[in-house]
């Protein structure tokens, strides 16, 4: 068992003829991901890394019976690529693109509320079920198969935590990078819900950061609905208000909302221990297993 992606996931790569898209398509295929098609307007009929390219996502999905897509499309066209995938027979869309205009994402979010398709990202490293499939840019080699679910707003912080887990022999069911933008498709609550429903996931690591109220909402959700134990980490304890710490979403507003303190308190109140260091998070997980 795993969450959202696995051996049977059939993946379309949107933007497969671009530099990023081509490189990561190859990496995904090498990892064993079932990449069945590319989709690039005007490039239909070509083949990239042994994968047929179609002009539209609809055609790619129809012809190759695909159920997931990964978006490697420049920011100016990324929202349109997401709309295309959301309106197609695809079930899961993973948007890697960084720098998508916020108003574009507000519109995408509105469409998301009207369809059954799930979006992960944008500005995210993607999702991986170790040993089965990776959709995105995560370095496959640090992951190992096991019983811990991981969800994170940050890419490299995810790798750090996964590395700690793996080096102690703790494998992962699935790791989901939900992305660092203010408006994203899959939230912490969505991911936690999936892990809670997954029988194989015995513990969960949730890596949050300053900005927004997603972590607080997650804490609420954990307290109310979850049995699977969760360990947390929150980046940005030392961030000053009003300064954007890299991610568009990582900012403590002038009025003091979005602080690490508020998130840590909320998680602690929900019974979630929050590590001071990534290493400590791994300690908590070890105790759960």
């Amino acid at each position, binding site marked *: 068992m795993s969450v959202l992606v696995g051996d049977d996931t059939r993946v379309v790569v949107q933007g497969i003829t671009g530099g990023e898209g081509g490189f990561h398509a190859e990496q995904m295929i090498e990892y064993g991901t079932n990449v069945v098609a590319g989709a690039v307007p005007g490039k239909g009929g070509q083949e990239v890394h042994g994968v047929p390219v179609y002009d539209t996502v609809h055609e790619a999905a129809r012809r190759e019976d695909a159920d997931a897509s990964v978006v490697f499309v420049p*920011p*100016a066209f990324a929202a349109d690529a997401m709309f295309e995938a959301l309106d197609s027979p695809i079930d899961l869309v993973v948007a890697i693109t960084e*720098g*998508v*205009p*916020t*108003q*574009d*994402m*507000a*519109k995408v*979010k*509105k*469409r998301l509320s009207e369809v059954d398709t799930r979006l992960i990202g944008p500005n995210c*490293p993607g999702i991986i079920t170790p040993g089965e499939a990776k959709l995105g*840019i*995560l*370095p496959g*080699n*640090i992951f190992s198969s096991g019983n811990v679910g991981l969800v*994170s*707003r*940050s*890419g*490299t*912080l*995810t*790798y*750090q935590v996964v*590395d700690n887990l793996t080096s102690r022999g703790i494998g992962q069911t699935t790791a989901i990078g939900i992305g*660092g933008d*203010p*408006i994203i498709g899959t939230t912490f609550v969505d991911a936690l819900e999936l892990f809670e429903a997954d029988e194989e996931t015995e513990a969960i690591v949730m*890596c949050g*950061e*300053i900005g*927004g*109220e997603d972590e607080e909402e997650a804490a609420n959700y954990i307290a109310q609905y979850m049995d699977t134990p969760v360990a947390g*980490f929150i*980046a*940005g*304890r*030392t*961030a*000053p208000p009003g*300064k*954007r*710490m*890299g*991610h*568009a*979403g*990582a900012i403590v507003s*002038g*009025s003091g909302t979005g602080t*690490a303190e508020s998130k840590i308190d909320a998680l602690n109140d929900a019974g979630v221990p929050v590590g*001071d*260091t*990534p*290493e400590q998070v791994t300690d908590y997980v070890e105790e759960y297993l």
Partner: protein
Amino acid sequence: MKLHEYQAKDVFADAGIPVPESRLATTVDEVLDAVEEVGFPAAIKAQVHVGGRGKAGGIKIATDEEEAREYADDILGMDLKGFTVDKVLVEAGVDFVDELYVGVTMDRGEGEPVAMVSEQGGVDIEAVAERDPDAIAREHVDPAFGMHPYQARKAVYDAGIDRDVAGDVASVLTTLYDLWEEKDASDVEINPLMVTAEGEIVAADAVMNVDDDALFRHPDLTELREETYEDELERKAGEYGFDYVRLSGNVGIIGNGAGLVMTTLDLVDYYGGSPANFLDIGGGAKAERVTNALDMVFSDENVDAVVFNIFGGITRGDEVAKGINEALEQFDEIPKPVVVRLAGTNAGEGMEILNTDLVEVESTLEDAVQRAVARAEEVAT
């Protein structure tokens, strides 16, 4: 990207929102010419990107030429929260009976735009929001439809705006929303929107911040950009294209990925040190970018030691090591101790390349941070 008040007012006025007559001035003489044209009383307003300009002495009302000269002299060249004032807007004073607030922003939590109206304009709206949340009427907008006219009316009537001016305020709010959408703004705001004794409304201030990620479709706005930085280092970071925030400590921090860099800052603090900066070199950085990053941090005289923490995903450890070597080999003496930790993609190759005569190496994040904190303490004392 933030527009200056005078730029935002131009945009608002072009869209039909009434603004006071005004002139931009960069010298005292220009200010005196300007007051002659706009008349007295005249507001002299520093054009800098800081909040609370008024309280900080950046806005003054001159009632005669004498005062105009005095205030112009005071404000031009003054330091306002770290920014030097090099231009002022000279604006006809408005004889108002009421000050309102109207604005549009993105409610990030809801993922939807929200239009706001309040009777309590002219003061810090965030303070109003905390003190008396009900004093601000909020109307969420479906971004696919845009704001329906009734929503503007509803926000205005919900805020308790006088029926005499309600229609005009609603139409300003509609225009603001349309501008917000058309210009890919993150925020637009008029505070205060003044109501005169004659029942006219006038935008006495104007805020417009534009989503940097959307500037590619707004070449006209991009031209308005005036890079202003609180200091030389932020300017440099802008040039290099780094996400950089200067802090007050003495441990310089370089890493890849916002979350991991933030975590490195937090660990510096946790282990008793004090971070000097946030610097994210981003994903897939090549050697040159690494060299630039080290240059940045070395340029900060507050920095006593540096921790360089890379977890490679699309960033390759060998490229990073190459960049570190190149950056350090140009010095006869390494300016500040550098502690390096490489993990992830090609970390092994990186470690082989890395010139360990020039840097100190640790294999875990925790160890690297602790060592940098210790080195900084040594250097500082």
